């Protein structure tokens, strides 16, 4: 086992300021990031056997596979996994090429306005500010956190729910970024419901029914503690509301209401 390198906090802060000031944007278009060796340190408590390779964007189910790779390689507790210095190190050094590809920086941002490019870089390479939303958006930390939130050792395939989470982009966004998704029981219950009700979420209806479901569950969550219910009880509540979900989905589709169902309860 070897200790993991991480960026110093001040280095992270300075890099962000440099981007906002337009001083370092072109560095992110290069093949490799020139790290200032004096501004990285060995973490005292984050260790790794061997730095794993990631599957590059474009390969089938690359994010799901990478989620399992990162989660298995980096044995972190939640507090360690909120360390922006770690994720900034990984996105700038170990997985530089991966983040470049995934962010489509070179492909799509070569001729854009400086401030737009800076924002895009910060979104993909940094976690700024530290928040659950940004932990689940950063190209590398999202891989770890997705697996952490959904791994279930009681299942035959402990990553079955992780696979469900990555099966549909909107699902990931809503569950990962919304308040309901932070409730363990709800997250797992919903993903199980998703797996068990394939027909209900068939492709043409998927988008609107998912959004309608979360809108209704958010309303119920205003007076009911989902966190005290078990998965079976939560799935029953979702099931009991199927007709309401269908009706609301139809209304939203008809009016093309693209509201964000991840509204806080």
């Amino acid at each position, binding site marked *: 086992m070897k200790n993991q390198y991480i960026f110093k906090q001040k280095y992270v802060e300075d890099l962000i300021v440099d981007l906002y000031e337009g001083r370092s944007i072109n560095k992110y278009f290069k093949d490799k990031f020139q790290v200032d060796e004096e501004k990285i340190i060995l973490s005292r408590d984050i260790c790794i056997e061997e730095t794993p390779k990631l599957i590059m964007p474009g390969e089938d189910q690359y994010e799901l596979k990478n989620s399992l790779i990162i989660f298995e390689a980096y044995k972190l507790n939640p*507090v360690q996994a909120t360390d922006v210095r770690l994720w900034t190190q990984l996105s700038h050094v170990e997985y530089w090429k991966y983040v470049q590809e995934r962010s489509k920086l070179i492909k799509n941002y070569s001729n854009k306005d400086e401030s737009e490019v800076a924002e895009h870089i910060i979104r993909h390479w940094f976690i700024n500010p*530290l928040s659950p939303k940004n932990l689940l958006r950063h190209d590398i930390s999202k891989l770890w956190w997705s697996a952490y939130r959904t791994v279930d050792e009681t299942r035959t395939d402990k990553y079955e729910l992780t696979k469900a989470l990555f099966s549909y982009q909107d699902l990931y966004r809503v569950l990962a970024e919304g308040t309901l998704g932070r409730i363990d029981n709800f997250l797992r219950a919903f993903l199980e419901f998703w797996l068990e009700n394939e027909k209900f979420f068939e492709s043409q209806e998927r988008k609107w029914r998912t959004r309608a479901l979360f809108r209704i569950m958010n309303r119920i969550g205003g*007076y009911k503690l989902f966190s005290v219910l078990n998965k079976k009880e939560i799935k029953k509540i979702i099931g009991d509301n199927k007709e309401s979900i269908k009706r609301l989905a139809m209304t939203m589709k008809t009016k093309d209401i693209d509201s964000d169902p991840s509204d806080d309860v």
Partner: protein
Amino acid sequence: MEINKTSLPHPIVAPGSDDVMDSFETEFERDLYIDFIVIRVKQKTSNKTINTLLKNGKARFCVAVNCPTTLFRKNYYTDTDNEINISSDLLRDRVEVEFYVYATNSIKAYRPENINDDYENSTFDVFPGDVLGYGGRVIFWAEKKWKEMERVSSILMVKPREENHGPMLYYLQNEKIIIFLSKTDFENFNKIDYEDDLEIQRILHGAIVFPAFTYALTIMLDADNPLNDDLKDYKWYKIFKTRMETTYKLNDFEMSREDAPVVAQILLEDQAGKTLPIERTLQCMLDAQKSSYNDDTNEE
């Protein structure tokens, strides 16, 4: 999860609510250790209906601990009085603790004693998980170096601008508030040895830190300012928020943007001497003037 009072389908017991004319009282303490955090909680309600349900196992007290930064949410079932240990690997920065009593079973025709007369003869069907009482929320900071939060350097940094001369500028969209000084001012600032000089620190607080705090708080305390949504996840914002919620002197403030200058001064209050920045700055100047006068007098 703060209870959404507008969407409650049945009356609940809660401080500040007149749905039910009874109380829900809570006591809360916490201690931070290296490996774990201890929370001590007491909860009780004066409502007889709920107390009967509690006794019969049809309702239960619960303490919900939520740490947004680590996505930690867990309930602890405390009965009336309990101690909760949480590993410090699970919590960092702002932690919210909420107090509930909820139904564990379906209850038909629920009607709590001392219900508001507005409900007339209404009864309610209540289901498992439904909140019957809400005891409010407390906040604490799960940071072992809690005292570091009170240090200005934890939320503020100084950097140079491109221009040689010009006013200070502030930048809020960062984990720390950034004060941009002109090149000349920044060079002079770096020449000042303030690390070990309390008097110099006090003057800098008045001249540099106080305006920055006031600016940041003016935005933060303006509920209608759309910038608030963009800023609320930054570390400085969370620290300000927590300090405002936990500083006794700020209890009586309505917290509108007009209060920003006063709030800034209270947040900068010297914890040891209990003096505000203006008091310290003026005292430093008086002392310096006196010292200079004495030097002049001695020379004569």
